[in-house]
């Protein structure tokens, strides 16, 4: 199965899903078959004046993940992820990374057609 990127507050399957995509602390890149994962730090986007969502989308795209599970995705990040061919599962905050992956494996994640957060720069 394709690798899945999940925004996380710390590098653990038991960490909470970071609700913010662009300025998430990091990503767990998880193999859903084995639950093995690697951690990608995304902290550098938290200090960017602008473009955090776009940078985060690049980071996920470079990780090789084909699916993203997260809370909220802004319009530019969404556009970037879509261009990179990454499927986006939104509104998956208030749960752990493991729970989000289980939900995905159970086929309970609907992939988004549009961003669920307004941009700062309309």
């Amino acid at each position, binding site marked *: 199965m394709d690798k899945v990127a999940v925004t996380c507050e710390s590098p653990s399957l038991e960490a909470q899903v970071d609700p913010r995509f662009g300025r998430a602390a990091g990503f767990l890149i998880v193999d859903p078959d084995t639950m093995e994962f690697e951690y990608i730090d995304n902290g550098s986007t938290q200090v960017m*004046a602008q*473009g*955090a969502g776009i*940078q985060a*989308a690049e980071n996920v*795209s470079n990780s090789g993940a084909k699916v993203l599970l997260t809370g909220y995705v802004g319009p530019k990040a969404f556009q*970037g*992820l879509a261009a*990179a061919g990454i499927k986006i599962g939104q509104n998956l905050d208030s749960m752990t990374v493991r729970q989000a992956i289980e939900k995905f494996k159970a086929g309970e994640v609907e992939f988004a057609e549009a961003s669920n957060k307004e941009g700062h*720069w309309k």
Partner: protein
Amino acid sequence: MKIAVASGKGGTGKTTVSSSLVSVWDSPVIAMDLDVEEPNLHLFLNPTFTGSRPARMEIPEVDQALCTLCGKCSDLCQFKAISLMGKVLMTFPEMCHGCGGCLAICPENALHPIHRELGEIAWGHAGETKFLMGRLRIGEAMSPPLMRQVKKRLDEMQAASPDQPKDVITDAPPGVSCPAINAVMDSDVIVLVTEPTPFGVYDMKLAHEAFTPMNKPMGVVVNRAGLGNSEIYDYCAAKNLDILAEIPYDRQIAEAYASGVIISESSDKMKQIFLELAEKIKQKAGEVCRG
């Protein structure tokens, strides 16, 4: 001489001070409104506009057929206005600051410039006063590129004819970020307008700290004097920052302002305050020339 009227906090009286200085100055001036996000100096000076032009900025457009996805532009851009996303080079036009770096670095000539409209520059005169302003397009987030074009127009005006006024009074935007810095960076004197309230004092300190590294003479105008507390006076005394004028907290001033009257023209007492301010600003500039 270029005089920038700035502040930390908004609404402290920059336009009150700018318009009054223009009115009492002993020779004709160029009045320039660089608060391009919400210009209002023209509402007081009532200039006759004689010209305008759109202000535009170069941004990149990608020729996908020539792009080899090398990622040099994407790595260079600090603003994510151009981004290599997997196998697609994307542009985000509204994020671009117009530096031109991507256009210069592309080894394949796969990028060419198109334009984003920033707003408009307009100019004219009010009596002997020359007037110049910028107005940011609604929805545009970046004002410094437009401000640079207003200043370019100022240079053109001054170069075009030797009998242009020598003194420029600039109404700057509030704050201490890029627009405020951009408005004061090439002035000879900075006038900080504040009010003796906690917000006024706090933001004035930020402005003072932000502008200090530019090594320009600075002075303070306390507007709404009589309101609040003495903290602003303590701060200025501690920092050796001259208070150039105090404008009293007075309902009549607010009424005059609200009906578009230049405050220095609202009473003899006010005129006197601004005549003295103008004199002190000239002294401030002179201190540096002698120094």
